């Protein structure tokens, strides 16, 4: 169905509950449901919820900052350590604020990515959070893929220059048009 879906895998092992969550965008008939509903729904006791998730037809890109909320039994969990690990070998650590929110900058860690060259590689990142409640340990992982940031082959400087050229030519055409309008015409 055309929309985001949450894939949840869980394992209960005595005093420990482990959960892995992944949001996948699938194409097909529109589901008619907002991704907000999916994110709001409680999918496990301990959760890392993207806020927001990259919207339809968009992706996580290296070097971008994204927010996540840590929830326990549907309520924000402040002061919790979150560990980020990428398949390219980067490691990061952050702590959730009073609202359970954490902002993370995805590492720019694609080897040999070069400016001006499109790079279609993607890699995986994983967020891990742990919490203990009444002697029971909860551990949840959110994983997703991220791609090389297209900023590498998209030049804003050149964009401004080309727009400037358009402004200049547009100004000249407008000026010429005014002059032509001023000339007496025999027809029309």
């Amino acid at each position, binding site marked *: 169905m055309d929309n985001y879906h949450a894939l949840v895998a869980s394992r209960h092992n005595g005093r420990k509950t482990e959960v892995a969550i992944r949001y996948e965008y699938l194409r097909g008939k529109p589901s008619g449901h907002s991704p907000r509903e999916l994110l709001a729904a409680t999918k496990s006791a301990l959760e890392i919820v993207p806020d927001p998730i990259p919207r339809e037809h968009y992706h996580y890109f290296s070097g971008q900052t994204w927010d996540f909320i840590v929830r326990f039994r549907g309520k924000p969990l402040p002061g919790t350590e979150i560990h980020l690990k990428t398949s390219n070998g980067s490691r990061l650590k952050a702590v959730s604020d009073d609202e359970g929110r954490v902002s993370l900058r995805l590492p720019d860690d694609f080897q040999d990515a070069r400016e001006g060259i499109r790079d279609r590689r993607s890699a995986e990142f994983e967020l891990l959070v742990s919490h203990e409640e009444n002697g029971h340990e909860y551990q949840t992982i959110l994983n997703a893929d991220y791609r090389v940031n297209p900023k590498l*082959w998209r030049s804003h400087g050149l964009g401004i220059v080309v727009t400037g050229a358009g402004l200049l030519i547009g100004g000249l055409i407008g000026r010429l048009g005014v002059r032509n309008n001023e000339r007496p015409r025999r027809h029309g």
Partner: protein
Amino acid sequence: MNSFLNLSVVRKLVQLLAFVFLVYGIGINSYYLADKLTAALPALSCAYDFEGADYCTLIPFQHQMDHRLGTALAAGGNFLMGLIPTLITLGTFLLLFVVINKAFCGWICPLGTFQELLHMVGQKLGLQQQHSLTQGTVRRLRPIKWLILVVLVFAFPLMTGLGWLNHDLGDPFCRICPSRILTTLATGNTTQLYVDTASTTTLVLSMLGDFLFGLVVALALTVRQPFCRICPLLALQATFRKLGLLRLVKNATPRCERCGLCVKACPMDIVEVQTEMTKRDVTFEDCTLCGRCVEFCPDKEVLQLKYAGLTLFSADPRYFKRRNQMQKQWEKSTLKPLPKPADSGKRKKAP
């Protein structure tokens, strides 16, 4: 009539409200495309704007040509299944379009509003205005919107889906659309102003998009509605204009042949509004139903805006007189005095 209130003022207010709603209206739904109002709006409100309330119908059309119809045909699959998403988008577009017809251009479109505001800025700065394009220029420009609609909105994305063109041509119109750059910049997002060196196709399209945006901004200061004249959405609307409930209606009189004030008032320079003497429905393909021709028609009930047969607004000599005075006052108040044209004594000034 209040000294400041006229149809153009009402329209400007509606345009500004629509601009704010469509460009910054994320509060009424959400960031996600699935939450947008219609996803098939008959106006250039861009999906690349992350804060907008709705987006233009040309985006799903290109997407469906590429990822649905083209892909289904390439795989030898069910043609009807590939076509159904396009039919749903077209149906949604038509449901909206029937309500106010081409007034989506003249009253709702954010890019149209932006161009009108720029034209007002140009006028107030005292830049010399090109009141009307020559009929030759108008005739040469008219086919371009059809070409863009057929080639960039439907053919290239379809051929991409069929595997005949590279994937960078899956949404070629969006890549050159000035509304993409305008609406994103309006929200403080500069990511859409770029030159993309990923491939020759992206390089050409991104440069064309940036150049066109600059061109439209500069031209709009002195020329009325420069991009509207080649907008593929205007062409798509023209295809279905007979279905719309709002119409421009004319009751021609012999005086029409000598007058021509309606054409001078028309931001799209549609000469047929004056020359058409037999047809009642004069909602021509370039008409944006802005109503300026009705405002500046000096003869009673010759031009009318009608909704499902009911008269909404009608030409009236008394209204015309007051409106004309207001226009003259408006044009007089500039930051820099307008230079006098060399032959100003010989030519009628456009309203």
